[in-house]
């Protein structure tokens, strides 16, 4: 599925300094029943965001109007658990284009890259700096620069570089996906399949 190209993103950010945020929090299983990719943002962090009677939980950050933006900053080991791409869809559909954490779970990270959400892994110290800056001033802006592979706290100019493979970076900047690539080498795949051990 095509997605918007990612280049340089400047935005305020939403802080969620909880560790091991798992995919069941990102999108509980009971909201995985759709057969189309629509409406998942409404259920992002459903059980942290809403009471059982569907009223908003006032103390949850997404319900606090002073925090907003296209960047979500999460605690260590973000996205652990299930392979459900719905978790990444929920993040994207809610309006986030980038998740920053000091550590990501593998499958979630892959899923994000496949749908146009940029996972940015920073050092634990820089993650702390970001949390501190946002808590001190919710209007703090971050710049995520994909071509340069940097994330910068704009108020102070403090920055850190992040890693991404050349291939995935090129995909994100151009809005390409892996299926386009794989389709283009199909004859090579069919030839390969003739010589498998099983």
């Amino acid at each position: 599925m095509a997605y918007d190209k990612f280049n340089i993103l400047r935005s305020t950010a939403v802080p969620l300094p909880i560790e091991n945020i798992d995919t069941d929090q990102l999108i509980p299983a009971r909201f995985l029943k759709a057969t189309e990719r629509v409406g998942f943002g409404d259920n992002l962090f459903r059980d942290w965001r809403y009471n059982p009677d569907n009223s908003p939980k006032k103390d949850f950050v997404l319900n606090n109007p002073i925090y907003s933006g296209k960047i979500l900053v999460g605690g260590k080991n973000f996205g652990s658990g299930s392979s459900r791409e719905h978790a990444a869809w929920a993040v994207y559909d809610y309006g986030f284009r980038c998740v920053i954490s000091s550590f990501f779970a593998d499958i979630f990270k892959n899923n994000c890259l496949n749908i146009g959400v940029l996972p940015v892994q920073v050092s634990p110290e820089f993650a702390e700096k970001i949390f501190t800056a946002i808590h001190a001033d919710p209007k703090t802006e971050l710049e995520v620069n994909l071509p340069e592979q940097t994330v910068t706290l704009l108020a102070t100019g403090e920055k850190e570089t992040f890693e991404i493979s050349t291939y995935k970076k090129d995909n994100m900047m151009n809005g390409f996906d892996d299926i386009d690539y794989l389709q283009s080498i199909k004859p090579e795949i069919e030839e390969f399949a003739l010589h498998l051990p099983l």
Partner: protein
Amino acid sequence: MSKTLFDKVWDTHVVRKIEGGPDVLFIDRHLIHEVTSPVAFLGLKSRGIKVLYPERTFATADHNTPTINQHLPVADPLSANQLKALESNSNEYGISHWGLGHQKNGIVHVVGPEYGITQPGATIVCGDSHTSTHGAFGAIAFGIGTSEVEMVLSTQCIMQPKPKKMRINVNGKLGVGVTPKDVALFIISQLTTSGATGYFVEYAGDVFENMSMEGRMTVCNLSIEMGARGGMIAPDETTINYVKGREFSPKGEAWDKALAYYKTLKTDPDAVFDKELTFDGATIEPMITYGTNPGMGMGISHDIPDAAHVEGGAATYAKSLDYMGFHEGDSMIGKKVDFVFVGSCTNGRIEDFRAFTSIVKGRHKADDVTVWLVPGSHIVESQIKDEGLLDILTEAGFTLRQPGCSACLAMNDDKIPAGKYAVSTSNRNFEGRQGPGSRTMLASPLVAAAAAVTGVVTDPRTLIEELV
């Protein structure tokens, strides 16, 4: 050059390496279910492309299926719609479909091995993180997202950076009442839920060599819970005896060729791992979790540790214990249990029901506990009946449900109510995993059985006859 088991299987399946990018990896077997496949099929439709090798994909309905009255129409319209989508997509693209009511229907990671779809040295993927289960056969098996499901359908390949390699050795004699589930929960408690992120794990040592295939599947199943992409165990006689003669296993000449390949599937003596860990099996106790991720587990006789003694931040730890209604220093023994769930791709196989039955035999279900016993497949269901286990269970006050994922992720009606405590043989104790507000304690079928007959968390060793 010396290679690990993982290297051998991975390298055999690399179609092409991309400079500064992932490998294009060929996938031998692809399993799909109703929840993570519909959007992939929509993608195929919108691009106007076909399934390249429909005979390499198998569909079964499991996440969303009811576990009672499976002969009746599915009441939840959203679930029914998803099940129907799996059927119509499978039919449209020529994929084998084992829907609700089909004799081969069951949990994807239980039926795959049972029918010989799972083969040593194969690459196997499914839109489900517990695909790591199939690594028990010496396969590279891991969970993928829906975009990748679409990739496999359309080109039988996915694009993956090669993970780092870790070997976990466990040697020694396991104590009475210590099962493969306890070995896995112990390892996860040592590594935490992110300790193996970025790695593919090989399990080695006599503890795994002495395990049945069912036990090995339980261990490999839980690899993802320490963050590993997957886990695998080198195939041996136990593996080959299990695989031989199953419906989709190679036959005749193809079997001889496959057998020659299987025999190459071991780590070379001088191969190097990026990380290697060794544990003493004799020190492992029956395990139980007390928090909201699978790394928060401990020997059942221990007390809940202080925040100072666990990895990670105190605030997250406090939030977790608060959700569970537990406190630092609490003993788990004697905690009230409202529900017991035995089943799932982790512990829904025949050995798990044999273990459960061994404890409840001659005892009776505690009055105020609700117990859900959910076999992983119709084969498991038949084995429970044919081996006489059902008679023993019935005598002890238990009933058997029908196959499916059930309360493991509570997508169907099998939900633990808010605030209630469940001892579950499944794989995740995340907040709300088994239903909004549910509180899960992960454990083995023996610990589940001990809770089912006493109504509280109980060390199963106190109920095992030899010890009394």
